[in-house]
């Protein structure tokens, strides 16, 4: 083989790769699809009537392995209650730089007040911006979720409207045989999904 032959041999891989489809996802323009159960930024939900779901019980803060959640509960004002319960969370802060997105807070929450979205792109230039307060975490009354930097060209508002589906380790009814049964969240958005059936209902 001459020089030309060797050259062609060497460029064979290059040539064959050249016509294959490109795999690159051009990120700022195109967002890559995330898995269904992706754990992203948190959101504090509301009931369909606009009331807050959080009752300020601090179970999420207790369950957090990174200790990144700070909650303070307060008694509901009688004339204008914020949540249907006795109390509501009047301070709710999450330090996103501590958070490890394990969703143990989601699992601990008795009222499904805190759930997760698919937004995972939330870099900040300083530490203060990474502390999400109730202003950012709590969904609006119309069911939309506020973004920390809504005017940023990289802000993706659609990802905030995608709920993560998650699996409870055991069924809330206590039957371990139901381990792994999908409990899909209907949130974000003031959705009214059917309540979880009791064990009797399940067994029937």
């Amino acid at each position: 083989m001459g020089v030309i032959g060797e050259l062609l041999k060497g460029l064979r891989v290059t040539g064959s790769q050249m016509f294959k489809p490109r795999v690159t996802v051009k990120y700022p323009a195109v967002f890559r699809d995330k898995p269904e159960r992706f754990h992203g930024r948190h959101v504090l939900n509301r009931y369909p009537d606009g009331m807050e779901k959080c009752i300020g019980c601090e179970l999420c803060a207790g369950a957090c392995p990174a200790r990144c959640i700070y909650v303070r509960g307060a008694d509901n004002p009688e004339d204008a209650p914020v949540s249907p319960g006795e109390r509501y969370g009047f301070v709710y802060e999450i330090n996103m730089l501590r958070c490890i997105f394990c969703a143990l807070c989601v699992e601990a929450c008795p009222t499904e007040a805190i759930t997760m979205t698919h937004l995972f792109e939330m870099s900040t230039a300083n530490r203060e911006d990474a502390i999400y307060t109730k202003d950012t975490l709590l969904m609006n009354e119309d069911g939309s979720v506020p973004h920390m930097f809504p005017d940023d060209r990289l802000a993706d508002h659609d990802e905030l409207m995608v709920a993560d589906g998650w699996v409870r380790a055991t069924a809330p009814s206590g039957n371990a045989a139901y381990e792994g049964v999908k409990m899909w969240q209907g949130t974000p958005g003031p959705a009214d999904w059917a309540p979880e059936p009791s064990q009797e209902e399940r067994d029937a």
Partner: protein
Amino acid sequence: MAVAPTTTPGLLTTTIDKAARWAQTNSMFPATFGLACCAIEMMASGTAHYDLARFGMEVFRASPRQADLMIVAGRVSQKMAPVLRTVYDQMPDPKWVISMGACASSGGMFNNYALVQGVDQVVPVDIYVPGCPPGPQSLMHGILTLHDKIMAGEINR
């Protein structure tokens, strides 16, 4: 090379500033500083699916002398902190630091004696990327945020 920001920028200096910033953002070589699981995601962001080469930063430099951007990927132990500082000091100006992941940014869930609670105790950090670990797309968001901040003149080096 860093063009010093002037208080009253004239026509000429603003143009030079812009050109310098444009050049800085489009050839930002990262230093390899993977310390833990975040490093896997950092490596993944250089692969074909994410392709950091689109931003002119495909070469992760093993030598700090050739690097502009230090991506601290992973938890920094107390023993690693002086090493990290040395590598940072060896990098030529202008240089930037991205703190990638919960551990590097704040210690994450490891609030104990062994780890530095936030790498900004050791080096000045420009961008914090939350996540545990942040995916390649999140890291790219951090990088693009850094680019935006440099172009806007919020970070001057």
